[in-house]
């Protein structure tokens, strides 16, 4: 087996894996504040990508389309929070799992009917010509994924550390009740986290669409792997998701090469079940002590 081919597959797989990491990061944002995640996040990625495509088709330049798409994603995130999560959190139940699945289903059906069932290309000004780096070929498009992922994760982390609102976010993540007693509205912070998470999902859609095309089912495989990355890395480690995301991306790219493309999804699913069985808090997650 030619090592350069293996290297090539691993690198392009790992770059793809950054998209999983980005979506998984979106789970972490909401999990931190509310211990809930949006099971319909894949549909959020998809509708935001479709919306951005429409913006592009309306003639908006790429650099205006991106913020438009992010805004739309944030808006949809807020819809999910209001309709699917808030009530369940108030009742301290787990109804949000079912409700976010349901809202995702609704988004899916709406997208099918508004934008059609077919996969469509997503135009981008970034070139898809390969450039040669250290013996492997990468395209500017693939590199743009990496740049976008690190840029938004960096921005969000800066926001959390440097702004007052961001510190409120961290306070609610650390101890919801104590934060409330200090006059921070937990409800609004949870809204903020869902808005951010929606934007992150939208960016994932915009970054991945030029590579995969846009269609109603574009995120159904993506989301399973994002779940896997989030669970394996642990729902509280931003560094972990990047590492595990790249690892999983490389692994599945090799799996599809050796086992056949149908098995592409298998490593992520197996990893997820294994991680849940062996280390439910994730490789990089913190263990908690049970109290009664």
């Amino acid at each position: 087996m030619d090592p350069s081919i293996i290297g090539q597959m691993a690198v392009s797989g790992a770059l793809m894996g950054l998209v999983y990491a980005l979506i998984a990061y979106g789970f972490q944002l909401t999990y931190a504040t509310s211990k809930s995640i949006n099971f319909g996040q894949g549909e959020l990625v998809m509708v935001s990508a479709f919306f951005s495509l429409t913006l592009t088709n309306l003639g908006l330049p790429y650099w205006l389309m991106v913020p438009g798409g992010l805004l739309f994603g944030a808006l949809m995130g807020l819809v999910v929070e209001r309709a699917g999560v808030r009530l369940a959190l108030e009742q301290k139940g787990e109804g949000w799992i079912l409700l976010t699945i349901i809202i995702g289903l609704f988004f899916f059906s709406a997208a099918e009917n508004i934008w059609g069932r077919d996969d469509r290309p997503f135009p981008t000004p970034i070139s898809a010509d390969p450039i040669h780096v250290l013996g492997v070929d990468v395209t500017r498009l693939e590199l743009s994924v990496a740049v976008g992922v690190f840029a938004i994760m960096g921005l969000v982390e800066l926001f959390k550390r440097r702004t007052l609102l961001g510190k409120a976010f961290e306070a609610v993540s650390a101890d919801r009740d104590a934060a409330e007693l200090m006059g921070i509205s937990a409800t609004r912070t949870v809204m903020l986290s869902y808005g951010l998470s929606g934007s992150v999902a939208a960016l994932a859609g915009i970054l991945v669409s030029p590579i995969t095309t846009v269609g109603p089912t574009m995120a159904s495989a993506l989301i399973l792997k994002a779940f896997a990355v989030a669970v394996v890395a642990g729902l509280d480690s931003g560094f972990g998701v990047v590492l595990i995301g790249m690892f999983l991306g490389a692994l599945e790219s090799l799996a599809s090469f050796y086992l056949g493309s149908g098995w592409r999804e298998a490593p992520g699913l197996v990893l997820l079940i294994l991680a849940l069985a062996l280390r439910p808090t994730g490789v990089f997650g913190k263990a908690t002590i049970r109290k009664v």
Partner: protein
Amino acid sequence: MKRILLLRGAELIVFALLATIPLLVVSPYALGLLTLLAIYGILLIGLDVTVGYLGQVNLGHVAFLGLGAYTAGLAVTKLGLGMAPALLAAMAVGLLLGGLLALPALRLEGPQFALATLSFAALSTTALNELEGLTGGAQGLSLDRPPVFGHALTPPLFYWLCMALLAVVWMLMRNLLASQWGRAFEALRDSPIATDAMGVGTYRHKVAAFALGSGLGGLAGGLYAFNFEYLQPHSFTYDLMIILLLGVVLGGRKSLWGAFVGASVIVLLPNLLSNRLLFQIFSGLGFAMALASGLRGLVKKTTRPFQALAPVAAMGMLVVGGLLVENTEDWRKAIFALMLFSVVVGLPEGIMGFLALFLAKLFRVPHAPLPEPADLDAVLPARAADGSPLLVLDDLKRHFGGVKAVDGLSMTVRSGSIHGLIGPNGSGKSTVVNVISGLYTPSGGTIRLRGAGLPSGSLLRVAQSGVARTFQNLQLFGELTALENVLVALKGVYRSSLPRVLFGLARAEERRAQAEALALLDLIGLKDQALARAKDLTYGAQRFLEIARALARKPDLLILDEPAAGLAHPDVLQQIDIIKRVHQRGITIILIEHHMDVVSELCDTVTVLDGGRIIAEGTPEEVKRHPKVVEAYLGQPPQTDISGGAAPLPA
């Protein structure tokens, strides 16, 4: 008697009607739908075990349908097996894989459980698709319904077979879910910690429940294969899973009738969606229902505004959509979503939950009568207390990282005594209790009960050794009644094997158990509220119930973790009275308490902890005067200056 007649009568009538249909109706289409109804009925009863009883979002049930279908299909085509063995194989595969999946999924709750099952479902679709040599992959697998006893199964015969199986499953599950098993499933959902601490065992019950539900999924899969005689991997995907969840939730959780209603809805949905007029009528009806119940909730203030209005909005969208959209079939997923949303938010008990209340009132269905309470002396025989050492802690340690919560504790609890354990907040009392009862593994030292080592680090095994406990933060099974809370923990009555339970041969045992549980409820003064749900009881009653439930373990040693915390004064007096009565039966008690008057009145010996170590031990009076105790509670005492030159303390 009237109750039995009404409930069983309704079941009998429905099944009799369903059985006669093929004699009256010849439409193969209608017969096909009814066959599907029976198959989905079995499938949803299985799904309800996890979704309803275990209370977990299970996204993997559809995989068991698929795996069961392929097992039956392959058994017939590749192995040439007959129908009965093929169906058994399908069910066995469901049971087995369900049990296997439950093992890693065991420790998981909520989202993690949902993700584990979702991944399993995706993985099994991948496998069915890719193992082309075996399953034919995306090409699909064709099979013929094998003859039974040399007769080809015509559609009516196959229909009867499915209905008969549904009836059998129905009967067995009714018996099982009403038994100790069903209660354990529900207990597990409400408080896994208490389930273990009551000696029930979350582990085997969770595996059993999941395997059982999956086994029924497999059986339904086998029937599915013989119904359609053609299988494709993509029939068993997430889309169908959502529809199945719709069925269970809409029909009503924790209800066989709910599963039946849900199955009917699933079967009729495609027809409902293909006929626009019919759809408009039904969406209008749904809207009216949502509006009526929403308004009622708002006026009576029983629901939050969101809970009342969101379903109305969702149903409104359905009505408007029904008028605007030409082809409702295109929007089927959105329609499912809106329906599911309305039900989950506005009607969490489902159609049957709502209807059952209504029908029970209409026909005045009485509650099943309760037996007379058993004699308390038979339930909790008074034991002789000889004052010998019962529980001996030797140099017990429990560290959390650098925090030494318990740091070298040696203590002897004598048989028949009430041993108080007190200390300021953070002194390690609760940690001691959690180590003894097995929630935490000790970092060092030994615990001996009657001279033998007590198992460490397992709530379940400690509970089975004869130690029972209550919880400072109540861990009752909220959805179960007071009586059921006690029944779950009851020791020494349930002996029947699973088959006897399934066939309903364990009823005498259940009566005896109820009588014993009532005697315990009588002891704490809650006999009259035996049928109230635990979460509806007053706070004081909930604290008393914790004790009754622990007593159902018939323990040698009872650990009461702050039994008077947060109680109003009259309730504190009643609690003291209850503890005295328990003590009179010769049960040794460890009492953790903050109320000094409670401790003084009840305890023979008191151990005082501070910083994870013992600072004093003795009778309540001795301990109260002990300088170290005074210091621990009140801080450094003012220096008594012998020379008399100290400035007077400011008043």
